């Protein structure tokens, strides 16, 4: 499977950075055409759990030889899972691990680490009740801080108008948009944080919650 070249990022660096949660999926042909440069990672899983598994399956030297079919992952596990990697050293002819054996634990990890959906996580009430009887959600409150014109940088969200309920609706809509965007990528950050980005600066950040799931901390 050939993947349209995108960007190259040091895969080792990314794996280290994504020590706990998330990862990223991206790949490009190496300049000399002998294989793929890649960013390894999977949407919706913990890279800390994935990385040792990859190492156990293929050995660190063969990390770059993974090649998986996203459509197959979706059909099999009902989740968006993408891996598109070639072999930096061996090109398409390089050795390949057992893809099915890799995908199964990934699906299990996803289920245990994210019992609440991110959209649910974004609906957590935040702050007290207003006189109007409305109450901000995490997503709504943070939307007020990141909407168009509210910051010197990243004015990429719709402008801020209406009531608290309107802000909550806009915040949740944005979370949904980020999560449902097929090009969204998941990054583990600083061991405990998970950023999900739909590009164009539309990124939601989550942190582990006490119940084993995630809560939204805000937009980026």
């Amino acid at each position, binding site marked *: 499977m050939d993947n349209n070249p995108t960007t190259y990022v040091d895969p080792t660096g990314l794996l280290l950075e994504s020590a706990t949660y998330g990862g990223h999926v991206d790949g490009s042909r190496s300049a000399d055409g002998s294989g793929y440069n890649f960013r390894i990672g999977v949407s919706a899983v913990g890279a800390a759990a994935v990385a040792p598994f990859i190492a156990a399956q293929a050995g660190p030297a063969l990390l770059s030889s993974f090649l998986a079919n996203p459509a197959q992952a979706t059909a099999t596990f009902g989740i968006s899972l993408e891996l598109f990697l070639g072999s930096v050293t061996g090109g398409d002819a390089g050795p390949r691990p057992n893809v099915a054996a890799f995908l199964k634990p990934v699906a299990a990890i996803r289920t245990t680490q994210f019992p609440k959906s991110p959209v649910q996580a974004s609906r957590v009430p*935040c*702050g*007290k009740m*207003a*006189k*109007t009887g409305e109450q*901000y959600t*995490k997503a709504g*409150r*943070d939307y*007020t*801080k*990141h909407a168009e*014109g*509210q*910051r*010197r*940088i*990243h004015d990429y969200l719709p*402008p*801020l*108008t*209406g*009531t608290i309920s*309107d*802000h909550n609706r806009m915040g949740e809509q944005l979370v949904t948009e980020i999560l449902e965007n097929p090009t969204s990528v998941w990054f583990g*950050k*600083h*061991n*405990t*944080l998970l950023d999900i980005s739909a590009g164009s600066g539309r990124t939601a*950040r989550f*942190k582990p919650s006490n119940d084993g799931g995630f809560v939204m*901390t*805000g*937009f*980026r």
Partner: protein
Amino acid sequence: MMVRAEADSSLPWAEVKSFFDSEKSEDLDRRDIFIADCSKETWNEILEWLNQCPYQVQFVCDGKPCAFDSVTEIFQAKESSTVILYLDLGQFSVRTLFFYEDQVEFDFSASDIQGQVSLDKLLSFVGELSKLIGKEVIVSYSSEPEGTDWIFKVDAFQKVLVRDEDRVSKSS
């Protein structure tokens, strides 16, 4: 937690720099300035003070510049629209959405506080607020409302309490 400075003196940037790292924080780029146990009278005091300050003040209602005659009018407008007060402090700007009558909350971008000069301006503004209303003013992370996840506080006697860096190290 230690008393590190008076609000009218300088708080060393190196001591608090990590609290304004928007990349590593779970709260990313927003920080709050928070005052508890307020009332409409507190808001009135603040707005009257701002009218006399050299800061540039602008009200915006649902995206359009507007003006209000009283705090009551602001909170009435807020029941059906978004009212924002922007305050340009020179080095950076702060704003409030008048979330609640009984608490004052401004917010600002952590990325705007990137050195001693902007930190001094922030500390000066917070100190002036504290002096004006005689209450503790908290600078906090933004992900938890009501200033619970604080960075530093200026009390009514202008003492500055700075949080230890445990919070940052947990996130990094």
